[in-house]
């Protein structure tokens, strides 16, 4: 199975882009929390190396084998999530962490890989032009179960990142545009209109503290304001590395995680932000291109769903920072501090690389 030729086909462009973005992330984690930066920087660097090694190991295994074991993997991960709800250690008010020595892991992140694999398995056999009702129910349930378990931890942000995977399946399996539009509209209406008009401030606050307990006590209004001030005051060229007043004086919340892009915008300005956007766009495009070279339907599903997951999470995060999306605690892939997220995104990308490597048959 293992073939040196496979390694020659490994997609170094994707890996390079991911590593560059991750290193930019580490550089700005250092800037954002200088007072205990070394600890955070070392941890993240170790996570990056671990993730890179995991990726290299993962691409050696044919994705078709991974798909074949996807069902037990999916069941196992859901059992872990369920177990966490009952036996998980309460860290920062949520039961989303497994503590392994000095490292903590969030199973809810890694579960997304299992979900993508199991969806690829089911829909690779799918022969119909349009998404049937059964297909709709099964795919929704497969994504909905771990998402719900995650939301119950409670970790609304991570639960929300399951949504692009589901929508990706709907699109690819051919859900009618009408239904897709209805579902998207329903999500947007309940999300935006409900949030902005139906709920009173104190209700929002209660929901916020219920769903995202780690957030700043001053509430999302304060966070959004500070985030916009940070981004806006950065201007075209920025205030300089380590010189952003919003981040250095801690006006900006969650500077090393969800709001790290605001730190970059403040310190490097619009030009720096544009550079990071270009890196992301190249990465998303590169991941997407695996869809078009994939040898089979399962490969298409894997590549597409992973791209949707990473691309949408990026989009939602940058929208969140300027108030185009409610602040829900979604980190930006590769850039934000957080090992589980980094590992998950590397493993997810490994599936796409896997598909691209095995686009030709070796018979």
């Amino acid at each position, binding site marked *: 199975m293992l073939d040196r030729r496979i390694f020659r086909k490994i997609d170094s462009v994707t890996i390079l882009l991911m590593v560059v973005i991750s290193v930019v992330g580490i550089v700005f984690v250092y800037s954002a929390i200088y007072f205990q930066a070394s600890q955070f920087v070392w941890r993240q660097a170790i996570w990056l190396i671990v993730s890179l090694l995991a990726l290299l190991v993962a691409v050696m295994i044919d994705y078709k084998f991974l798909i074949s074991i996807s069902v037990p993997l999916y069941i196992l991960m859901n059992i872990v999530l369920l177990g966490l709800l009952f036996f998980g250690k309460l860290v920062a008010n949520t039961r989303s962490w497994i503590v392994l020595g000095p490292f903590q892991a969030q199973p809810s992140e890694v579960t997304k890989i299992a979900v993508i694999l199991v969806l690829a398995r089911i829909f690779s056999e799918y022969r119909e032009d349009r998404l049937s009702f059964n297909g709709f129910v099964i795919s929704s349930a497969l994504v909905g179960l771990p998402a719900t378990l995650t939301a119950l931890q409670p970790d609304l942000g991570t639960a929300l990142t399951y949504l692009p995977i589901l929508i990706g399946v709907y699109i690819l399996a051919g859900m009618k545009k009408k239904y897709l539009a209805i579902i998207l509209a329903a999500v947007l209406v309940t999300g935006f209109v409900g949030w902005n008009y139906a709920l009173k401030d104190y209700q929002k606050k209660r929901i916020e503290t219920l769903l995202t307990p780690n957030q700043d006590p001053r509430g999302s209004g304060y966070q959004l304001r500070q985030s916009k001030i940070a981004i806006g*005051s*950065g*201007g075209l060229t920025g205030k300089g590395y380590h010189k952003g007043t919003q981040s250095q*004086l801690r006006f900006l919340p969650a500077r090393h995680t969800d709001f790290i892009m605001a730190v970059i915008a403040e310190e490097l300005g619009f030009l720096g932000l544009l550079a990071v956007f270009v890196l992301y766009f190249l990465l998303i495009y590169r991941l997407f291109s695996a869809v078009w070279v994939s040898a089979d339907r399962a490969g298409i599903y894997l590549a597409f769903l992973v791209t949707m997951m990473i691309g949408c999470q990026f989009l939602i995060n940058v929208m969140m920072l300027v108030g185009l999306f409610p602040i829900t605690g979604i980190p930006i892939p590769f850039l934000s501090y957080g090992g589980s997220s980094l590992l998950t995104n590397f493993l997810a990308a490994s599936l796409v690389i896997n598909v691209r490597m095995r686009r030709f048959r070796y018979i």
Partner: protein
Amino acid sequence: MARIYEDLTVVIRRSKVALFVLTALIILVLVFYWKIQVLDHQKYWKMAEANRLRELPLTAPRGLIFDRQKVILADNMPSFKVSLVREAVNNIEDTIDNLALLLHLNREELKKRIDRYRFMPAHEPIIIMDNLKLEDISLIEARKDDFPEIKLEVEPRRYYPFGPTGAHLLGYLQEVSVDEIRTQPEKRWRGGEMIGKSGLEKQYNDNLTGREGKILEMVDSLGRPRAEISRTEPQPGRNLELTIDFDLQKRAEELLQGREGAIVAIDPRSGECLVWASSPSYDPNRFISRFSADEWLALVNDPGKPLENRVIRGLYSPGSTFKLVMALAALHEGIITENSTFFCSGTIELYNKEFNCWFKPGHGSLNLPEAIRNSCNIYFYQLGRRLPIDTIARYARLMGLGQKTGIDLPGEKEGLVPSTDWKKKFLRQAWFPGETISVAIGQGPLLVTPLQLASLTALVANRGVRVRPHLVKEQEKSDGRERVGLPEAAMEVVIEGMWRSVNRQGTGQGAYQPGFEVCGKTGSTQLISRESAERLIQRGLEVRKTHSWFTGFAPRDNPEIVVTVLVEFGGLGGQTAAPIAGQIFKAYREKYVRQANLQEN
């Protein structure tokens, strides 16, 4: 292996649409970032600066107030205050709860105060406590990390070392009111600033107030200072040097102790006020805090009116002291000469009404100096018969009654000099000649302040030269000396009477000082007419005493000091006011004349 050839074009097409949508959204978001970062940059830059920078005002110490010998009458001492910076507050209600608990404040009052200053920008600190005790300071200092929204600062606060002495003169400070801040034309006052609200503190507020300094510091999101960016030191206000002599002032207040009244002393050569006492007094140190409205209100509502500056705000009937005006008017109008005599039988009938002299047996025949010496009413009734009220009014005004003296203190009252016009205008009645008879001895609708009377006496002492009374030493000698149109000869006649009054067993003999030629005139204002007083006595009822006046100067030639004393309900002028004035003359003589004599020898 048939699957290899399965048709995947549909699926790929769908994925391309998705990529297209995702790309479009990313570009839209990028445009939005462009708007925030580049187009609206200025707005957000300012917001970031407002976040980062905090300006703290540094209160400038007020100028000190000295007496003429550089005794400090109003000083400053460091005092601690606590202010709340609302910028750093998340939940104002919680903060109020916590602060009320920490500082032992009344929650409702604290909230009211914060609400009152809500209109100010959030970065301006609201002072919530001042004049702190040592244990409060250590408590706040110990817990300052838990309360980043409050600031403990030192400010120079006013301190009056002699408490009630000269309180009316110095005045007091109070917090500038919210209305004053709101209606001020340009930004001058900060919320919580202490400004002069009465006395010299008010009159010279602009001079005494220094220029505020400021600290510009960088703060973090919790309002903790991280670095000082710049600091402008405050400039203290200008000092004020008064004409007041503290020793005489203290003596005057001792003499008024337990009485209601006023003493003012002026140097007739310059108009400098040496003594300015009003009793009862109060201790301005008791309400120097911003949070002592209760103490102040108690004084406002005190029936003894301790806050009232009686020297310029007390309006009294001048009583017999007005006879000086009558005498000068009659002399100048040519109705009498120095030697004209009238006969006093103790009573006289004028306009079908009986008028009495205070001395029932009657003074017999007397000329003007004797009439002044004895304060004979009949003599002046005779003058009242011969002078129309408007002529009397003209002379009274010429000598400074019925108008402000222009003293450098706020709130001076004008008093009242009646005339036919005045009566027509305010009472819509014609003037009756009988009323002129009352005015002739200083009764009737005449009202003067002690300062007006002192100023009038200075005019007499100067033989017709008016000086402007003032309290602050002038840098340049711009003496407001001005001759009024009264002949010196007439003045000498009146002065002869005043001299006899004190030195020849006249009504003013209580003011006699051996070796210091005191000249003066007493006065007793009838609160009710003498007739009704006698009726009350016959019925065995108590009669409230009259106000007691003395106004005079010394020495007779080249006068150096004018003293005017008023004691409310003091009885006859000769009994109460004259001896008090005598004590002031004595104190002055001991301090100044003897020293001068010793130096000459």
